[in-house]
């Protein structure tokens, strides 16, 4: 819980900067897409998406101050998605490389 008086203004002060950062990242993302580097653009695009997701998760979804159990649930989703990606792409990439 944040310290200080619980007023609407305090809530706005806590959340508005996050929103501003999200907007800035969005603008950066759209701008970066026009850079003349192909791979780098893709990487940047998804890195910025990751950063935005991190902000929303930690602040708006309150993972920052969530219980360990809730964090574990969130991590499980990501871990199993990683299994799915890693093993499937292991096949897809090696087939592409071999062909």
């Amino acid at each position, binding site marked *: 819980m944040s310290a200080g008086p619980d007023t609407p203004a305090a809530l706005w002060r806590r959340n508005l900067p996050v929103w501003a950062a999200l907007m800035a990242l969005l603008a950066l993302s759209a701008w970066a897409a026009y850079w003349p580097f192909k791979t780098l653009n893709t990487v940047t695009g998804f890195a910025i998406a990751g950063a935005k997701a991190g902000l929303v998760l930690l602040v708006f979804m309150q993972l920052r101050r969530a219980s360990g159990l809730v964090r574990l649930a969130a991590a499980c989703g990501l871990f199993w998605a990683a299994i799915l990606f890693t093993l499937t792409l292991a096949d897809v990439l090696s*087939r*592409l490389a*071999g*062909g």
Partner: protein
Amino acid sequence: MFARLMPEAASVQAGLTDRIFLGLTIVSGLTLALVVGLILVFAIRYRRGSKADRHPLPAIVSREFEIGWTAATIFLFLFVFWWAASAEIGAYSVPRDAIEIHVVAKQWMWKTQASNGAREINELHVPVNAPVKLILTSQDVIHSFYVPAFRLKRDALPDQLTETWFQATKTGTYGLLCTEYCGTDHARMLGRVIVMEPEDYARWLSAQPEGDDLAHQGERLFSERGCAGCHAPGSTVHAPDLAGIWGRPVPLEGGRIATADAAYIRDSILQPGRDVVAGYRPIMPSYAGLLSDGEIQALTAYLRGLGSAPAVARTPGLPDLRSNVPGSAPERSPAMVPGAPVQDRPAPAGPAVRP
């Protein structure tokens, strides 16, 4: 009796597979006997009310047992993995001098074409003791090329190439089966692999006639009767290109859609003014009375053989075939390239088409 329990083994791979299979069977049999035996012995000896000795177990024994049999199973399984994997890795590289055979599967037949020119349907002649490499593809759904006597199986995928190889060790005739479920007549998609002595194989090879079939007749008619004058790509007359229309929806003048099936093609030949393709003028003359039914069938077979390419205009070989086989698509047999000009396609045995 034992012979009845094992399938015939007629390839190099078969011996290897059978050894692993027998090894696993022995291990499994012993394990099963151990477990079932222990259960029976414990259940009888410690049946309720029996006088058997029941001293308590020291706690430490439990832990040691657990660790012991965990370690034992891990060791055993890793050994089996190593055994099976090394057999598999040993079979990765295809011998360089292998006879290359293209296999095209479709509902519900096998077409094979050897690099030396022999073409067969539902049959494959190979010489004994020579490595044979199979390059498989499918024209419709997934099929699987399975020869039990060779312990050989590989899926044939549409628009992709897969490959495998074998070396037969015994002459004879062996069953070829489809093992990936592919529709109505999946169970009848059978063939034969005939393994011959090298000299018999050479004799058989030289006796192969040049193939001629319905689709080829149709192809000849297509140019003889002047169809090609308007419908061939690059014609100066504005007429629809017929490559790849088979089975596809055709937009008609007036907003209707027709499906390019046999009935539609027949109608278009006999009554060309009835269903005009959107964007074209009704300039085609009727061929009623000029073509026999058999000739229309041959033309239909030819058009069907041109394939049911997707509605999107696609040049032959595009999209690139993704495969495990080195070399680009055009270097390979034309039979492998979907939508390529047809030289070797007989009428398919009626592919299922979405209603």
